[in-house]
């Protein structure tokens, strides 16, 4: 009986903490949704349900001044290209590290792993100077090109997955006369779809949410990404503006990732558990 009582008390504490915590987690999102449907005149009202509700804030995003569709397109293009670049070049290297024996493999792999801990701020300044020298500042290329020269995180994640593919597959393909390229593209890539999906989600998310790099390479509106655009408009708003429109923009900007998250929650969560590291 005593034991039973303890369990009920523990359950109560668990639910109380979880519900309280979940409320704190969710409030900013609820507030974002709520404000985005309020009239600009009611932007500071403290009611959760907008009264009256309006869609005008979303309409204003299409205005010339904000040019939200342009920002959205830029973010989408950059994140898409970054994802393609990472999937391709990381899987190429990961395959070699997982399935091919050659000299200096271990040295190369360890060097790559060391760069995992390298803060991106250390590489940002020389990369900026390089791209400035190439006259690419203000274009999307400085954000896209580095994705095409591999990456420690993606290579490591895919290598770990490739290593779980049974050795017999490799030997059987070899006996059948398959070349390394065929083994990579016909056997390893199709079998690694779950890991590729997880990496695609992470990479897309990282590029979509990135602030620092677009701030450096694409600093001016509207030729920039959603994050820099929203940060810029927030500064404009501080001098008396419509936070309702800003919230509508914020909501639209997080919607694609929320949708991906709901449809691919498994990959998201397994990907994190698989590697434990983002970026």
């Amino acid at each position: 009986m005593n034991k039973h009582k303890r369990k009920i008390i523990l359950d109560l504490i668990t639910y109380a903490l979880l519900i309280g915590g979940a409320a704190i987690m969710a409030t900013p999102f609820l507030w974002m949704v709520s404000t985005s449907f309020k009239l600009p005149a009611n932007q500071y009202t403290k009611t959760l349900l907008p009264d009256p509700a309006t869609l005008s804030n979303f309409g204003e995003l299409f205005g010339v001044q904000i040019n939200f569709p342009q920002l959205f397109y830029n973010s989408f293009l950059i994140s898409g290209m970054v994802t393609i670049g990472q999937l391709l070049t990381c899987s190429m290297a990961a395959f070699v590290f997982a399935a091919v024996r050659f000299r200096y493999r271990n040295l190369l792999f360890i060097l790559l792993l060391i760069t995992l801990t390298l803060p991106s701020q250390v590489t940002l300044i020389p990369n900026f100077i390089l791209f400035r020298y190439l006259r690419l500042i203000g274009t999307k290329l400085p954000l896209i090109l580095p994705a095409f020269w591999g990456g420690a995180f993606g290579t490591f994640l895919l290598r770990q997955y490739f290593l779980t593919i049974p050795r017999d597959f490799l030997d059987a393909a070899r006996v059948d006369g398959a070349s390394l390229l065929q083994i990579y593209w016909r056997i390893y890539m199709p079998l690694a779809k779950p890991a590729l999906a997880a990496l695609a989600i992470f990479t897309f998310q990282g590029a979509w949410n990135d602030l620092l790099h677009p701030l450096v390479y694409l600093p001016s509106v509207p030729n920039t990404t959603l994050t820099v655009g929203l940060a810029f408009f927030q500064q404009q708003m501080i001098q008396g503006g419509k936070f309702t429109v800003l919230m509508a923009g914020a909501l639209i900007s997080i919607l694609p990732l929320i949708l991906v998250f709901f449809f691919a929650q498994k990959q998201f969560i397994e990907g994190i558990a698989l590697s434990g590291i983002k970026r």
Partner: protein
Amino acid sequence: MIGMLAGQARQHTRDPWNMLYGLRPLGREKFWVFLLLAPTIFGLVVGAIGSVIATLALSFTNWDLLTPPNWAGLSNYVSLFTNPAFSKALTNTIKFSAVYVPGVVVVSLLVAVLLNRPIRGRALFRTLFFLPAVTSAVATALVWNMIYGKDTGLLNYLLEQLGMQPVCWLCTKNVMFAVVLVNIWGAIGEGMIIFLAGLTAIPRDYYEAATVDGANGTQRFFRITIPLITPSIFFQTLIATINAFQAYDYIYMLTRRGQGDSSFPVVVFSIYRNAWNFFNYGGASAQAIELALIVVFLMGFYLWLERRYVVYE
């Protein structure tokens, strides 16, 4: 960390890192191997090693990119210690990390332990706690700004309803805790997943055996759960530390003021401001080098701690 990283593929006992595994390339395939590796080698040489060397070289110069660079000797490193703005940024980063790292580890461990109990609605809770980790810091920081607002904010409104005085959350006095709170809020989701993975891996028998031996819940938690998830705790502390020293997005969005200033400047903020607002690329490089050295030093310290204290099965 290394144990955890290698753990995934540790099926060959003689070769825990799978370093001997693989096919030998035949004849012309050596060329293809090189081609497959070419982007990564380029990234490693130019993007990583080259960049570090370039940053190091830049840190000994004064360069605004408009006029030719001047040799500055050690002056940029001297000003790391003499420049009050940078000292403030460094102090802020350290204070921020000192609160953020234990905060993230403890809160996400607590959430994971609660979610690991047999409860209803686990998937819903997990989704809610993970949501901030999916969405951009920029977008959610916009709402946090509205929540923290002094006269119009939601938080002060709630305080007033409870009969308390409104607080200036983003003023110098409170800004650190306001910012740390949002950063922890954003990071719980990932930590929770790491800890849940660690918790579900603990065999049930351990708890049953301990119960038979008369251990109570607290004892079971501190004698079984905590020791067995030391790898996850270690790993999460490491990741949180790396993130703490590079934290930028929320801080930029919540604390910036006019003229590119901030009410809570951190080292990354200072690097950005020196390089792209003041065109002091040499000074910014020296700051980046110092940041990297601090992170490398901490990593070394953690790996030493790992060897001493972390238990791998």
